[in-house]
């Protein structure tokens, strides 16, 4: 009897613990989402609705107007610019670091370790450390206010080279032998065997780089001076001058627009992204 009661108590306690855990996690998720939900609601409201007190937490009547006004500030064009730049850099970085990792893992040559170190050290050179000479260099190359200024300096990737090198070294060596017996060269080996086997790593890198480039702020602020060529993040800064703490509806519509593309990339590639980091255990 006593034993049975104890196990029932134990069961109830475990169940209560699980419920508590769910409750805490749900509250945490809601708190994390709150600023975004608030911005979503804000993007639907007229200025009058935004200024009511107590605040109105239900969707308003100005959704279409707000998004149209934000779009008409030129933000649509800037979203396309950002998408173009983010895609060019993501593809470029992936290609360049696949080539670099192929050389580092599957060839024997002089200065190999030195070159790898040389690439790794660039991790310690973020834009602010070299921003003034980089700006002057871009002017010397007559690339100021062009997409070249936004893309070319970002094509090398120490992160990518490192990730692909790690991944390639975990691939069985028999594959290389087989490829050599088949008489296929290194490039065919890369495209037909390595790349199909590296999809998770490629997706993880693509997510990181797309989000990094889409969200970049300081460099485009300095190097781009024409509105038609500007990126969406700086577009948001410009839009703040238009909504000027009054037209919050349009402001939040602009923010929501700018938020969507990187979010879609993350959610679409989420599984691969997390697996690329070993987050979901492979069975």
């Amino acid at each position, binding site marked *: 009897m006593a034993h049975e009661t104890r196990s029932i108590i134990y069961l109830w306690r475990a169940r209560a613990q699980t419920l508590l855990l769910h409750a805490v996690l749900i509250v945490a998720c809601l708190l994390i989402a709150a600023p975004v939900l608030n911005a979503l609601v804000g993007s639907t409201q007229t200025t009058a609705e935004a200024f009511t007190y107590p605040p109105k937490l239900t969707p308003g009547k100005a959704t279409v107007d707000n998004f149209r006004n934000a779009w008409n500030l030129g933000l649509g064009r800037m979203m396309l610019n950002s998408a173009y730049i983010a895609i060019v850099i993501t593809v470029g970085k992936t290609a360049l670091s696949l080539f*670099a990792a192929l050389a580092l893992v599957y060839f024997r040559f002089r200065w190999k370790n030195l070159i790898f170190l040389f690439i790794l050290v660039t991790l310690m050179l973020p834009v602010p450390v070299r*921003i*003034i000479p980089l700006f*002057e260099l871009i002017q010397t190359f007559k690339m100021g206010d062009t997409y070249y200024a936004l893309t070319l300096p970002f094509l090398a990737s120490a992160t990518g080279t490192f990730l692909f090198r790690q991944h390639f070294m975990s691939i069985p060596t028999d594959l290389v032998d087989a490829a050599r017996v088949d008489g296929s060269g290194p490039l065919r080996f890369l495209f037909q065997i390595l790349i199909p086997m590296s999809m998770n790593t490629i997706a993880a890198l693509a997510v990181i780089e797309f989000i990094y480039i889409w*969200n970049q702020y*300081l460099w485009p602020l300095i190097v781009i001076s024409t509105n038609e060529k500007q990126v969406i993040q700086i577009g948001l800064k410009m839009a703040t001058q238009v909504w000027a*703490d009054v037209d919050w509806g349009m402001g939040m519509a602009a923010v929501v627009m700018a938020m969507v593309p990187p979010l879609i990339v993350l959610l679409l590639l989420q599984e691969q992204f997390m697996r690329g980091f070993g987050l979901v255990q492979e069975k």
Partner: protein
Amino acid sequence: MEIQAKFPHRWLPYLLLLPTILVSVIFLYYPTGQTFILSLQRVAFLGLRKTFVGLENYQRLFTSPDYGRSVVTSLKFSVGVVLIGLSLSLLLAVLANQKLQGARIYRTLLVWPYALSPAVAGLMWLFLFSPTVGLINYVTDTLFGIKPNWLSINLAPLMVMATAIWKNLGYNIVFYLAALQSVPGVLMEAAEIDGANTFQKFWKITLPLLSPTTFFLFTMNLIYSFFSVFGLIDVMTRGGPVDATNILIYNLYQDGFVFFKTGLASAQSIILFVLVIILTLVQFRTGERSVHYGA
């Protein structure tokens, strides 16, 4: 470990590495070297005349009360972002790592703000904190009968810090979750048999095993709080009011690209660079030590 099988080829590996090396030399190494040189020069307006002045720029920075204040503002901000950010992320990651129904959904819901930009985060929180339309002041008014002005000198640093912490939670949680998955279940079971409770298991097993990840995230968060938050500060406070949120990167931007003090701004770049190097080395050393510990 070296892989044995190799493709025999004389120049192909160099060709494959050439694009990465070219971009690195031209756009990363060369400008960094130039920054050193510029930091030792005084540059007349528009860069037309450059004169060598030795360490004068550094001397000016180290004796300037304004720069000193910016250093203090930056340190306070970074310490807050790193300590609070990492503790919160670790707590949430541990909770989401429990065996629960819907654990995968929780993980997604905790991680997704990673995709938001610092500028987007800044504007959303500006809306939340706004003294006129903000939700936060409605809550504080209802609960405590106060409506603080979050854009004031005293509160703006807190507002900016809260936003920066929130924005980086997703990133930290991704890495903590990945690390938690690799904590061996056997260890936990052994501890349970020995009668360890949840907190003991956390302090004695989970936390030490996570230390490599914590050191990695420590460095990444410091770099984030030094550099990446620029957009967040620029849309929220522009370093103000009266320099209250003028962290080092914002000071550098203003000196370099608003007031065109090229030499002085370059010296600030070098100071930030030295900080990055010190932090990276610290991470490498602690990282190496914990490898023995972890695996």
